[in-house]
């Protein structure tokens, strides 16, 4: 009781000391942030640019978006500091986009012929250049796969517009000018704009007219995410609700990604379709697929964030209803809902090659009810140098029991060939 009283006294004293005010804590608040968070007007870096004080743009972003000392998913952090990345330790953040620190996780293992193979960390995601935090350009893909954007210029601001003027007005359209941006528009609890107000574009993503080097974005993709999005999915999933819209300043997710990767999915290329309705057959597979061999599921409980899809709507209120982190909305796709790049890939990085959402380098994700892993004797050489715990981290902490005892790759969520 004594300690509680002291604590209460502390609270009261603090309020008196610092005063009552109406501070808005969020830094970006849906648009251009406080200038002093990124630029230092009177102490520019030696050799720096734009009065930024980081070595480069991404280093500046990671000043806040990486935090040494985290013990798990925390706040708006999208990178685990190197100081916490020892051997056998996985990155900590669990944002839908993924933790960039997977780029620093290099694994060695014996392949099926017994030869030593090294899986370089840089295959795990978008290799942003952030010298202060130890991120370097992709040394293999010197330009964006399927495009010409130089790897040496890849930075957070290649995809996110830090000064983002794109705003979603009361009519749902996105424009670069108009009513003032009053708050973020990314979250399921973001209040919809009223007349005379606008909210920010999803995740400050680049929109129409934003040019980096030789590429120019043509619109913003639609989506809404839960307000608490950086969290373990051990018990409940984090569902970002991706949408489909090509009007009012929007473009589809596939179109948006193809700004830098135009040849990955352009017409005539022999590639997996995107931005297409799933059709009744694949949608039915998705709805009934529970695990390898188990097709007893129903639409209402079929969603998995390991294979998200784009709902065929550009209505943000509808998307907000789906954007939950408590398993309250696990509805699967209808036939007009679409497959997109993010159905299989994470946007930042993942624990798997090609920033996939699951391991596609072996038939099974689990063997005998456990994750493949160097500590699972039945895995043979299939563990790819990871322990079972590291695999579990890459699946956002889902227990192996989420899957079949011999779970095959998640292409089968739509194609059901297992």
């Amino acid at each position, binding site marked *: 009781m004594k300690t509680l009283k002291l604590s209460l006294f502390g609270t009261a*004293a603090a309020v008196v*000391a*610092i005063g009552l005010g109406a501070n*808005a804590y969020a830094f970006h608040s849906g648009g251009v942030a406080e200038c002093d968070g990124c*630029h230092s007007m009177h*102490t520019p870096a030696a050799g720096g640019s734009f009065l930024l004080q980081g070595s480069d743009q991404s280093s500046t972003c990671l000043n806040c978006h990486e935090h040494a000392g985290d013990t798990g998913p925390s706040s708006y952090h999208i990178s685990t500091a190197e*100081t916490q990345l020892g051997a056998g330790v996985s990155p900590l953040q669990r944002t839908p986009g993924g933790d960039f620190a997977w780029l620093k996780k290099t694994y060695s293992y014996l392949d099926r012929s017994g030869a030593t193979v090294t899986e370089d960390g840089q295959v795990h995601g978008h290799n942003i250049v952030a010298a202060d935090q130890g991120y370097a350009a992709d040394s293999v893909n010197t330009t964006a796969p399927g495009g010409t954007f130089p790897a040496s210029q890849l930075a957070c601001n290649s995809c996110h517009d830090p000064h983002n003027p794109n705003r979603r007005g009361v009519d749902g359209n996105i424009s670069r000018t108009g009513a003032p941006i009053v708050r973020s528009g990314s979250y399921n609890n973001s209040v919809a704009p009223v007349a005379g107000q606008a909210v920010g574009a999803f995740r400050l993503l680049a929109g129409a007219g934003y040019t980096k080097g030789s590429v120019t974005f043509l619109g913003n993709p639609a989506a809404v995410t839960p307000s608490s999005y950086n969290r373990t999915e051990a018990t409940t999933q984090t569902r970002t609700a991706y949408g489909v819209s090509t009007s009012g300043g929007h473009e589809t997710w596939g179109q948006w990604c193809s700004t830098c990767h135009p040849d990955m999915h352009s017409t005539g290329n022999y590639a997996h379709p995107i931005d297409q309705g799933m059709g009744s057959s694949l949608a039915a597979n998705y709805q009934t697929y529970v695990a390898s061999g188990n097709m007893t599921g129903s639409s209402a409980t079929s969603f998995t964030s390991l294979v998200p899809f784009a709902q065929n709507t550009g209505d943000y209120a509808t998307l907000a209803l789906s954007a939950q982190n408590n398993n309250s909305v696990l509805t699967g796709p209808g036939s007009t809902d679409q497959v997109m790049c993010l159905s299989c890939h994470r946007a930042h990085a993942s624990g798997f090659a090609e920033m996939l959402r699951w391991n596609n380098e072996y038939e099974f994700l689990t063997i005998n009810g456990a994750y493949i892993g160097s500590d699972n004797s039945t895995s043979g050489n299939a563990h790819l140098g990871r322990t079972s715990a590291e695999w579990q981290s890459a699946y956002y902490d889902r227990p192996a029991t989420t899957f079949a005892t011999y779970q095959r790759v998640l292409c089968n969520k739509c194609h059901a060939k297992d």
Partner: protein
Amino acid sequence: MKANAIKHIRIIILSLSLLIVSAGMSMAGTFKASHLYNLSDFTGPLTYSWGALSVDATRNEVYFIYQNLVKVFNENGMEIFQFGDDLQLGQVLGAAVDKNGDIVLLAYLEGRSTIIKCNYRGEPLGEIKLQRLPKDFADFNASQMVSRDGLLYLASHSEKKLVVAEADGTFVRGYDVFDMLPHMDKERNDIDLSTISVDQHNNILFTIPVLFSAFILSPEGKLTSFGRPGGAPGRFNVVGGMVSDSQGNYLVADMLKSAVIVFDKDLNFVKEFGYRGAQPGNLIGPRDLVIDGRDRLYVTQGRARGVSVFQLAYD
């Protein structure tokens, strides 16, 4: 007569004003921070980015934790011992030395923080369990630990809570920092706490970068804040840790400005030092600060710049 009196009063006021101004300038002129060296092992200066720091003020030894390895440096900044890389204790987050010379580790294992007492070689002796935690702190999971004057100061950066405990883990007092701040519609995850330190008066010092503010939390629970956003000297860009030296000055790391900003005990700006660059006294992304009993300031940095050590002087 009356005119003379007014003249005298004017002279006195002018003199006092000059005295006050010159005192301020004198303070600004007397504080010095000289780069001494970087923490090193026998291969040269450490080439790590950031990491967790603590000092044993009694022995002026420094503990630096990086990727689960606890490295101990002597008073000259040379590594003399290391332990803890086997993950058996979990992820080691912090180290402190108690009054008996035993090492106390803060580790994170299976989703919970644990405090482990070790001998001077880092061999575990037993767990120190937090006891008598009030209901509001029942799920408290520490991510940083500071030992001072026989007390353990624990911070949970994700929960934005602080707990002060006896050396045996008995709860003394706790603070929910988020609830102590005036706010409107934002969530706990919208702010970050810097690392904490504890000054000679047992105030807890920390910053909240997104608020461009530094905070001094007294043992009585009085929270004082200072700081204004800006790039000009004395203003805050993206602030990191804060410490207090033997003179009561407050030193605040600014990651974006790549400088350490110094304020006197009355929170008047004194000077800045460091700044981005390749010279030994420059800093790149300074984040955490600790200070030993000889006013030696240890600064963690990015870009594999290791830990820079500065001698503070006041002559």
